[in-house]
Structures are given as structure tokens and as C-alpha cells.
């Protein structure tokens, strides 16, 4: 059912100097169960509706975000209009045209049907948590602490604008998160998660296996000299890098000269081993991105093809500047923020770094002397998309003649992301998928990569 019909009608009654206006309603329903050390220890249920309202009059754009959704449409739109009278910016609201194509219309309707079909599966969720806990204990009996959270989320979005455009979409996903601490050559603290469209498709075995591998790799630490060396970057490490590095492929940032890729479209910027796509669905199907916050349907975009920079992620504004169709990447939430993020920019949908043919084990075995980088801390403070320069704290395991020797802690890697990925020799075949921590507005799938050199400080 469309909820913004009254807003659409009221919008037409705004003063005549209004050039553009749009309203987006986002609804979130969440249900979460939690197990702590094998027992159900809590849960959460949430229902949230948020209205994003923008009005562009003769002077500028007024923006109102409200959770007071019972307010009259006229009152909300008028407040946004009043705000616009104080703004003198040159920015415009870019509005989606009213008549969607047949494909878009079908896509929207299919999504709405899915929302109506969903029902709670509380008991089934308890069963999944109990099974996961049993498998965890079987895998590693002496965990100091274990906490499992299983979330079911329904998210819907409806958009109307002054051009008469109206669209709605929704999605459902399940997210299983395991946090453990264990004693194995010191304390190991880990958090891993998996996301899927249905409960049955959650990869519980994969999640348990990640925890097992994480504990086992907590080898005794060794001393290693810093310097430039050959390295294998773990899949989780690569995912973490791209939580910031995706900005290299943002259309608006490219237009404003704020990325290290400016002027390089069509050129080789990375190793031929690297291909990157932004997709509407993740490989495991856990994340779907049907419609962005401007109403553009998501479409798959090739960003890098065998090292060549082939495309950008666009919202309506940057798509128009490049003479291209929007890619369904208009978004607001790029990271956890102190302020509600109301500005429409670009966010990835599901960023996919394509896998290769080589196993992680083979890559490690091929390193004569170097490091397997396993942990990446604080990438949000440590990578500058404008220059590509980074200095990222992390942890790894020293490799000698293809063998893992010991853990190297308190290290940081330094360099430039484009140079680093230009030196990729091999790409792994196993991948890892991670959502943006806390916010979950986009997700990344990545394999491990083998690079010829990286600068390590210890």
C-alpha cells in the first residue's frame, strides 16, 4: 500500500516558486534474538518510520528529516519550504521522471508482493541459534564467552516527487552474528556475521569455520622487521579496505575532483587481475538493492574490468553530468554518524571484487618471505580517498618459505591504494562478504589478494 499519496497531492499546492520537491519514507521493522553462552538471553524488536523531505524554491533547498510521521503533509512540506528561503546554494534536487519503464514497474511490484508475503519465524530463529551454538561448541569447546544474535529485518522505501513520480520497494534479510572470546596463545576476540534472504540459506557452517580459523591463526607472536615486502591480504582485510576505498568509484566525488581516480576513466589503474563490480545482489543473495533513495532502480555496474577503470556509481545528478543512466546508487548513509545523514550522495549497493582461481593456501605457499595480513583496524580514519594514501593499523602472520611462522602484532601498512592494487599478482577463489559495520547500508564481497609489495611498519 502506498502511504505517500497525500504528500504527492499536497506537493502540488506548494507556492509557485517551488522548482522541485520530493519525499521519501523509509520503514524498518527488526526482530532479533540473542543467545549468550548457550542460553537465550535477550532480544529486540523495533519499528521505525523516517521521512526525508526536500523542497527547492527560488533560493535553495530546504531539508527536513522527521520521525514525527503523524504530522500533516502540508505542515511538513511548508517547514521544508520555509527553510529553503534562507539557503542560497546553487544545488538542485534531481527528480526521477514520472513514467517508469515497464521493467522498472514490474520490479517495484514484485518487491511489494514480497513484503506482503513475509511472516515472523521466531521459533525457527531460535532453532538456528541453538544449532549454531552447538556447532560452535563442537568446533572449539573451550570458548571463554560466546554471544549469538539473529536479526530479521524488513526494510521498505517509498518515494514521491513533484514530477508525479511514485515508487516503492522492500526487502527482507536475516543476519546472524557471532561474537566469541577464547584463550589460544592469549585472548582471541572475534566477531563474524552472515546475511541471507532466508533463514535456510544462512551459512552457519561457514560462520563457524571462520571462527575456528580465526582462533587457530592466533599463533604465538614473533618479532619481524618492518620494510617493504610481499604480502597476502586476507579476504576480510580486503573487505575492510573497500569500506572506504569504494569512494574511488563515486560519480559525484569524481566530478568534484575528490578521488584519486580523477581523469583516469578508461585507463588501466589496477592490476589486470582485478575486476570490480557494483551489483544489485550479493553473491550469496543476502543483500538486495532494488531502488535507491531517488527512485532509480539498481543496475549492475562494471567499475574495473581486468584493471581498466570502466565505470562509476551514479545518482541522478552525476548520471546527468556524464550523460549516462543512473545506476541506483543514490544513498545517504556512508558510515556511522553523529548527525542524521540527510544529504543525497552516492553509496555502493553490493561492491564485488571478483574472485580468481588460486586458493588462499596456494597464495601463502608461493610467498618466500613476507606476511599474510589478517586484521585491519580503523580503516575509517586511515584511508584518504582523495589521494588514495593510507596508513592502516593491523595484524598479520609472518610467512617464510610458504610456511606460517608466527603472529605479528602492532603493525601498520602504508602506501597508496591504487599502487597497492596495481601490484596484485594473484586473486583468491574463496570470498568473504561483509556489510558496512553497524550501518549495513552497503556490503562488500572480496577474495584474498597476493601483492608484490607493501610497506609495513612494526
Amino acid at each position, binding site marked *: 500500500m502506498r502511504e505517500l499519496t497525500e504528500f504527492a497531492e499536497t506537493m502540488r499546492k506548494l507556492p509557485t516558486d517551488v522548482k522541485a520537491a520530493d519525499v521519501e519514507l523509509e520503514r524498518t521493522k527488526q526482530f532479533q534474538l540473542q543467545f549468550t553462552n548457550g542460553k537465550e538471553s535477550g532480544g529486540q524488536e523495533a519499528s521505525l518510520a523516517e521521512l526525508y523531505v526536500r523542497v527547492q524554491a527560488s533560493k535553495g533547498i530546504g531539508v527536513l528529516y522527521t520521525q514525527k*510521521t503523524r504530522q500533516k503533509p502540508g505542515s511538513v512540506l511548508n517547514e521544508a519550504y520555509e*527553510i529553503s528561503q*534562507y539557503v542560497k546554494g*546553487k544545488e538542485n534536487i534531481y527528480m526521477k521522471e514520472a513514467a517508469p519503464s515497464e521493467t522498472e514497474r514490474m520490479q517495484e511490484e514484485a518487491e511489494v508482493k514480497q513484503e506482503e508475503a513475509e511472516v515472523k519465524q521466531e521459533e525457527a530463529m531460535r532453532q538456528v541459534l541453538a544449532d549454531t551454538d552447538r556447532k560452535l561448541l563442537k568446533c572449539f569447546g573451550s570458548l571463554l564467552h560466546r554471544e549469538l544474535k539473529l536479526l530479521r529485518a524488513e526494510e521498505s522505501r517509498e518515494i514521491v516527487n513533484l514530477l508525479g513520480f511514485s515508487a516503492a520497494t522492500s526487502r527482507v534479510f536475516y543476519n546472524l552474528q557471532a561474537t566469541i572470546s577464547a584463550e589460544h596463545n592469549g585472548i582471541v576476540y572475534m566477531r563474524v556475521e552472515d546475511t541471507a534472504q532466508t533463514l535456510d540459506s544462512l551459512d552457519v557452517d561457514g560462520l563457524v569455520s571462520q571462527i575456528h580459523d580465526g582462533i587457530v591463526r592466533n599463533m604465538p607472536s614473533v618479532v619481524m622487521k618492518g620494510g617493504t615486502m610481499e604480502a597476502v591480504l586476507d579476504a576480510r582485510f580486503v573487505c575492510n579496505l573497500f569500506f572506504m576505498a569504494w569512494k574511488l568509484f563515486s560519480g559525484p566525488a569524481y566530478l568534484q575532483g575528490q578521488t584519486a581516480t580523477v581523469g583516469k576513466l578508461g585507463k588501466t589503474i589496477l592490476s589486470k587481475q582485478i575486476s570490480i563490480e557494483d551489483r544489485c545482489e550479493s553473491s550469496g543473495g543476502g543483500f538486495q538493492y532494488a531502488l535507491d533513495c531517488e527512485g532509480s532502480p539498481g543496475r549492475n555496474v562494471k567499475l574495473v574490468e581486468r584493471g581498466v577503470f570502466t565505470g562509476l556509481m551514479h545518482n541522478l545528478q552525476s548520471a546527468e553530468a556524464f550523460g549516462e543512466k543512473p545506476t541506483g546508487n543514490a544513498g545517504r548513509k556512508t558510515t556511522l554518524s*553523529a548527525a542524521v545523514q540527510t544529504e543525497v550522495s552516492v553509496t555502493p549497493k553490493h561492491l564485488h571484487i571478483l574472485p580468481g582461481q588460486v586458493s588462499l593456501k596456494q597464495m601463502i605457499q608461493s610467498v618466500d618471505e613476507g606476511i599474510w595480513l589478517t586484521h585491519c583496524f580503523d580503516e575509517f580514519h586511515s584511508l584518504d580517498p582523495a589521494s588514495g594514501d593510507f*596508513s592502516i593499523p593491523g595484524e598479520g602472520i609472518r610467512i617464510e618459505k610458504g610456511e606460517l611462522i608466527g603472529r605479528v602484532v602492532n603493525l601498520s601498512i602504508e602506501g597508496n591504494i591504487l599502487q597497492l592494487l596495481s601490484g596484485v599478482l594473484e586473486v583468491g577463489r574463496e570470498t568473504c562478504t561483509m556489510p558496512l559495520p553497524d550501518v549495513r547500508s552497503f556490503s562488500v564481497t572480496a577474495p584474498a589478494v597476493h601483492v608484490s609489495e607493501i610497506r609495513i611498519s612494526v
Partner: protein
Amino acid sequence: MISERELQLILECALQGRGDFAEVFLENTEESQMNSNGSEITGIRNIQIFGAGIYILSGTDSIYVYSNEVTFPSLMKLADTAARLLEAGQSKENGSTGKNRTVNLQRQGLNCFTSAANFPVTSYSKKEKLLRNAVMEGKNAGPQVQSLHMGYFDSDQRIRIANSEGLLTEDRRQTARLRCQAVVGDGIDNVSRWEDVFLAGGFDAFAASGIYAEAVRSQICRMDLARKGKMIQRCNVPVLLEAGTGAVFFHECCGHMLEGCAVVSKESPYSDMVGQRVASEKLTLVDDGTIRGQVATARIDDEGHLRQKNVLIENGILKGFLNDRLCGRILGTGSTGSGRRQNYTFAPTCRMSNTFVLPGTDDHDEILKSMDRGVYVTGIGGGNGGAQFTIMVEDAFWVERGELAYPLKPFTITGNGISMMKKIDRVGNRLGDYDGAFCGAASGLVPTTTNQPRIRISQLSIG
């Protein structure tokens, strides 16, 4: 507005099952943002955060539900859902039944919502003037500025808390913040950085303080110094953390690991160390949510518990942890008034507030003068807490024979907090200047402050 009688009924409904404690958290927050591109106002955004959360505990089990549908029927339904969720859980041995409990609310400090009229809405023109002043300060600071974006943010959070222990209370937190985002350089060799001036109180207090003008000038000059700085070479030297916001180091290095939730989950290396030496005997670390005029100060925490001063480490000995109600139950020590959350969409958890290293006995000036060779850190951009912590050093100098030799380019310090704390060999005798910042964790982003006197770490591997 939900009446007191309705709040009682909601709490009683929440306790219909096996809950032994219930709480209703109501929030009505208004925020405003104004942005300038250096020459004109490019955006104004008004934000309304409005909703309620219901929290039920049964022993150490917890349920949290929230909604922005704040009517009596919808909150009764929410309470019923929460009670049913708790009832459906498998671990029956925890908690006692709360069936047919009666709640009698006692008003405490109920004056915040009703005094709303005392806080006039600031006109856009006043904020615009402040932004213009800030832009002028930045442009006239001296170094070449390539671009300058200013944002002014203010927030007025009003909360009401009622719980099954009979508490009915309110609080109001006002903050104002200026963000300066600048690109400084000659057009070829540029650096970009943003910094906040974050103060308690509304617009008038912020504008009257005048702190922002000096802060913007200082930021531009420090950015230019960092741009001209030398890359630090790999070394193992003493590191001097300047008085004031150098204490971000302690927030990341050990503060997060002294939050009860890290202790409960066994992530913290301090878990079993209360009463033991965990730091140099020169170090006393406190977290005090009662200090007047700070962004992290409030009369109550987000569970209605009165804020208090908590001594975490005293002369190097671990004294205790920061607890919310739930972790206080699990650890058996009770709440320390540290239950905090960004807003009602988060359940409360243990968080820092104003985290201070108390002044020691070493002479402030002598600490620098007596350094033969080392690094003097004057600005920290942020970091990440944990057993392994990291901080981003944005402003620093190389020191030779007690004098500043040259500025350094930004770099990262990473290390193991517990070993670092034992390497402190000087604690100065006076605190520095500071303002607020945000800390992000499980219950969202909350305002925090840090302060310390000059502190020296005897040896640290950098570069």
C-alpha cells in the same frame, strides 16, 4: 504526551511475565544543521528524532523494543511484545516473576520539558553570522587555504525515563558544534582535515565563548605545519602527550576495555585484575559525568541513574569498571551511572563520559625540557579502542635536547594498551584545554570529553 498514569500501566504491562525490572525511555530531540561553502549558506537541515524504547530485565536477560509510534495504545502493544519475548526465552532460571506488579511512580527532577519555553529558537541569521565569522577566521589565519567548508550543528535532546522502581525523571541536553573542513596548501601539495569545536549549551553560549574563532585559526596553522612536516622515521623513543586532548590516547588505550560490557564479554584484558597494578603508579584515571559544562555531562545517565565520579585506576591500581544497569547486575557491582545511548533506537550500554587523567607531581615545563630525543604529540585525530588500540596522530613535533626540532607529518600509533600503561614515567601537574568529541560503539555515537596533564611514555616504537 504520555501521562504518568499511562506510563505506570505500560510498565505494569511490561512486567506481566518474568521481568523483574522495566523501563520506558521517551525522547524528543531537535537538531539543526547549517552549512557554508565559505561564501554563502548552502544548506539548512532540520531534524526531529522522536520515539520511545521499552527495556525489560529478568536477572541478566534483557529485552529492548522501540518505536516512533508514541501513543498509549502503541506503547502498550510494544510493552506486551517485550514481555512476550522475554517469556518465550528458554532460560527460565533467571529472574523472578513480576506478575501483577504495581508500579508507583515518584517524580524526580521533572523540570526539563516544561521549561522548554526558556530556550528561544535561534534565528538563522544569527547562525549565518557565526559561520561567516568562522570562515573569515580561517581565511585570515595566514596559510594558503584552498577550500573551506563550515557546518554549525546544534542539538536539543529531551528525555523522560520511567521505571518499575518508581523513578520518573527527565533530562535535557543541549550541545552546539562547529565543524571546519579545510584544504590547506599551495594547490599542489595540499592537506585536508576536519575538526570540531563541540561545547555544551545552546547557540548563545557557543557564540559567546568565542572559542571557535581561535580553534579555526589554530586548525589552519596546524594543518600547514603538518603539511610541511617530515615523515617520521622508524624509531623507539619517548613520546610526550600534550596536556588536554592528548587524553584521547587513554580513551582508546584503556578506556574502552574498562567498560563493563568488554569485561562481561571477556574481551577486556583487565577482566580479573581489580586490585592489581595495571599502570604506572603515577597514573590515576577517572570518569566523571558530573563536571559542569561538559558535553558528556548530564544530571542522569540514559537509565535515569544519577551521574557520578568513578575512579577507574588509582595510583596504577585498577579500582573498577564503568557499568550500566545490566552489566552492573552481571558483575555484581551495580550501575555506575554509565548507561548511555545515542538515542531511543539503541538499548543503553556502558560508556565513558568525561575521562580524565588526574594531575600528577611532575613539572609541566620540565617534562618537555628534559626530553633529549623523542616525539611530542600535540593533536590526535581519533582512534580505535580494544586490547590492541590505534590512534591517529595529526599534530606532532620531533624533539631534540628539549626543543622542538621540526613538525612531523601525521602518523599512526598502534599498540597493546595494558603494556603501554606501565611505561608512563611522567605525569604533569596541570590539566590542559579541551572540548568534546564523539565516541562510537554499540549504543551509537555519544558525546565524550577527555583531558589530562602532560604525560610521557618512556619508550614507544613508531614509524
